[in-house]
């Protein structure tokens, strides 16, 4: 009997640990497309595909010659796997998270993750706007200034 209780308790412990691993904030991210990390990650962290809707990624990839004040054009060959990856992992894709799309109007195509309602809700609830202008941060788009695990897709409070 004692043995059965022991096994039961152990199973619960494992189940609990597994659930904690896939909880919000530190959810295990899907495998990131290497071409996306190599090309887009050369200038900034490879921003998570699931933090913007498909239409946003489409518009960004369609205007790389004017990419936030810089020319970031890619050859059609280099662009192809990146386009496929972002399309299949966007917030409103099967791999996305419906919570990320909350409050995003259908006629709104945010071009920055920092314009997404979920991002604003999480960050501006507690953090003063001027903190993002500090020289060490440069811009709110520099996730890694505060989230040390950002390059690996970790954005929890402790990352």
């Amino acid at each position, binding site marked *: 009997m004692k043995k059965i209780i022991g096994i039961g308790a152990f199973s619960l412990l494992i189940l609990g640990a597994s659930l904690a691993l896939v909880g919000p904030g530190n959810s295990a991210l899907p495998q990131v497309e290497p071409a996306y990390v190599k090309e887009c990650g050369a200038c900034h962290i490879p921003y998570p595909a699931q933090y913007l809707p498909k239409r946003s990624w489409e518009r960004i990839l369609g205007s790389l010659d004017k990419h936030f004040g810089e020319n970031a054009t890619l*050859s059609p060959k280099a662009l192809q796997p990146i386009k496929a990856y972002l399309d299949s992992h966007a917030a409103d894709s099967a791999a996305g998270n419906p919570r990320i799309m909350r409050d995003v109007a259908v006629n709104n195509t945010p071009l920055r993750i920092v314009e997404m309602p979920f991002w604003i809700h999480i960050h501006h609830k507690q953090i003063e706007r001027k903190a993002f202008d500090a020289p060490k941060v*440069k811009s709110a788009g520099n996730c890694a200034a505060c989230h040390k695990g950002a390059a690996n897709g970790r954005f929890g409070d402790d990352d």
Partner: protein
Amino acid sequence: MKARQFIALSCIVLLPAMAYAGAAQKPILDSYLAAAKAENAAFSGFSAERGKAFFLAKHEASADTPSCTTCHTSDPTKAGQTRAGKDVAPMAVSKTPDRFTDAEKVEKWFTRNCQSVIGRACTAQEKGDFITFMSSL
């Protein structure tokens, strides 16, 4: 006789070492050399001095990126930083030996950054001067 042998030996040992700084960059530099001659019949070779002036120059095309130094800093032996806050390895070949060894990568960045900073494509001479300057540091 001994002195002569020493000099000969020194040459054998030292020459390849001297040639090494820039040897990896030679294929790309050679292709820009051919293109520069095709662009301008009077072209007489790349210049590290011209490359330096080009690297430090300020341009009017963009308020965000007025110069190469916006991201690379004015000291190419030091790491730079993109506007999004990511580190850029030093441009100087002495610090980052695999600079200018991947033709596709070199063309990709000249294409992007010349458009961003100067607002036009760079000439083969400008590219060659730039690489010559970065190889001289």
